[in-house]
């Protein structure tokens, strides 16, 4: 929970804020365009605000909004959102050993607020779970610093977008700033040869499998990239990647 004083007083919290701050502008632009897109797709202002405040998952929101306005059955909308969010299931498996020292309530809140970039920065900063209480507290503070910036940048920009929906034309494509933020983070993760392979395989697979429903192409891409990298590791006799 990123508002807790026990996190805020640690230097790792500020480190998290600085790191996530480097992508805040992209997140903001993306949030802004998500807010604009929801209203322009036919949601009411109140619905769009509730969507922003409750769902807090941009890609799932953008997938769900056209289905909601088209009157699709609720279970179809929920199944689609679940599939778009499946990558978070993978992230949660990764985060589990880092977070298990917390009581369940705090674990769930931590998971809920950890979006793509908070997870990516965290996994990059801490390759291994903390060994003692102090290290675990530092890691948690860093994660929450990231989440605080991510949450604020996204929420403020989305709400602005909802209210400015009729002023900002989608055709400007300001949302591309969000993609550029992801490009930057992607480059920062390319620290070993196999990771570059992973990015190449996943990108190609995601494009090739685009026709799959419910954005399942993303999951297919992650699975094939990881599988191929593990295979290459086996063949080469383990080249341990760092960070």
């Amino acid at each position, binding site marked *: 929970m990123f508002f807790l004083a026990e996190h805020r007083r640690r230097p790792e919290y500020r480190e998290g804020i600085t790191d996530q701050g480097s992508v805040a502008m992209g997140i903001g632009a993306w949030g802004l365009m998500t807010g604009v897109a929801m209203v322009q797709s036919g949601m009411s202002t109140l619905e769009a605000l509730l969507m922003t405040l409750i769902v807090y998952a941009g890609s799932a929101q953008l997938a769900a909004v056209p289905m909601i306005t088209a009157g699709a059955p609720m279970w179809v909308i929920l199944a689609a*959102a679940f599939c778009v969010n499946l990558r978070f299931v993978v992230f949660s*498996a990764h985060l589990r050993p880092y977070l298990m020292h917390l009581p369940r309530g705090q674990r769930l809140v931590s998971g809920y607020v950890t979006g793509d970039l908070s997870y990516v920065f965290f996994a990059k900063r801490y390759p291994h779970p903390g060994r003692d209480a102090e290290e675990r507290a530092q890691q948690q503070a860093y994660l929450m610093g990231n989440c605080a910036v991510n949450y604020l940048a996204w929420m403020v920009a989305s709400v602005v977008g909802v209210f400015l929906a009729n002023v900002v034309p989608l055709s400007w494509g300001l949302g591309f700033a969000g993609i550029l933020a*992801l490009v930057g983070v992607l480059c920062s993760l390319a620290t070993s040869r196999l990771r570059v392979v992973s990015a190449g395989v996943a990108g190609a697979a995601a494009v090739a499998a685009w026709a799959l429903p419910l954005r399942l192409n993303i999951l297919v891409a992650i699975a094939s990239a990881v599988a191929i990298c593990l295979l290459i590791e086996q063949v080469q006799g383990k080249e341990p990647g760092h960070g």
Partner: protein
Amino acid sequence: MADTDLHTVLTILALGVITLITRSFFLFSDRPWTLPHWAQRGLQYAPIAALSAVVLPEIVTTQGQLVQTWMDARLFAAAAGAAYFFWRKGVLGTIVTGMLVYLPLHVGLGW
């Protein structure tokens, strides 16, 4: 301006639950349990794979079709952003450089 209806609000609440379930999927159970070793090793390739899978289609496809022309602002903007990153590091500069290339091409020339 569209009206708010109860069914949509219920759907939104349920979507919030989906966010919670997916983001915390492996955080619910208290029982001791660890990932198999191969999965732990595999996870170091997952973050970059997930990003690439989300990003690349947004840059090189339109409605699922590979772009047919090089006159697409996204290609140049992404290349400029990546070039900045490997030159100077820093994600903020990547965004700014990319958008400085993107906006004139996209809004100005309609690419």
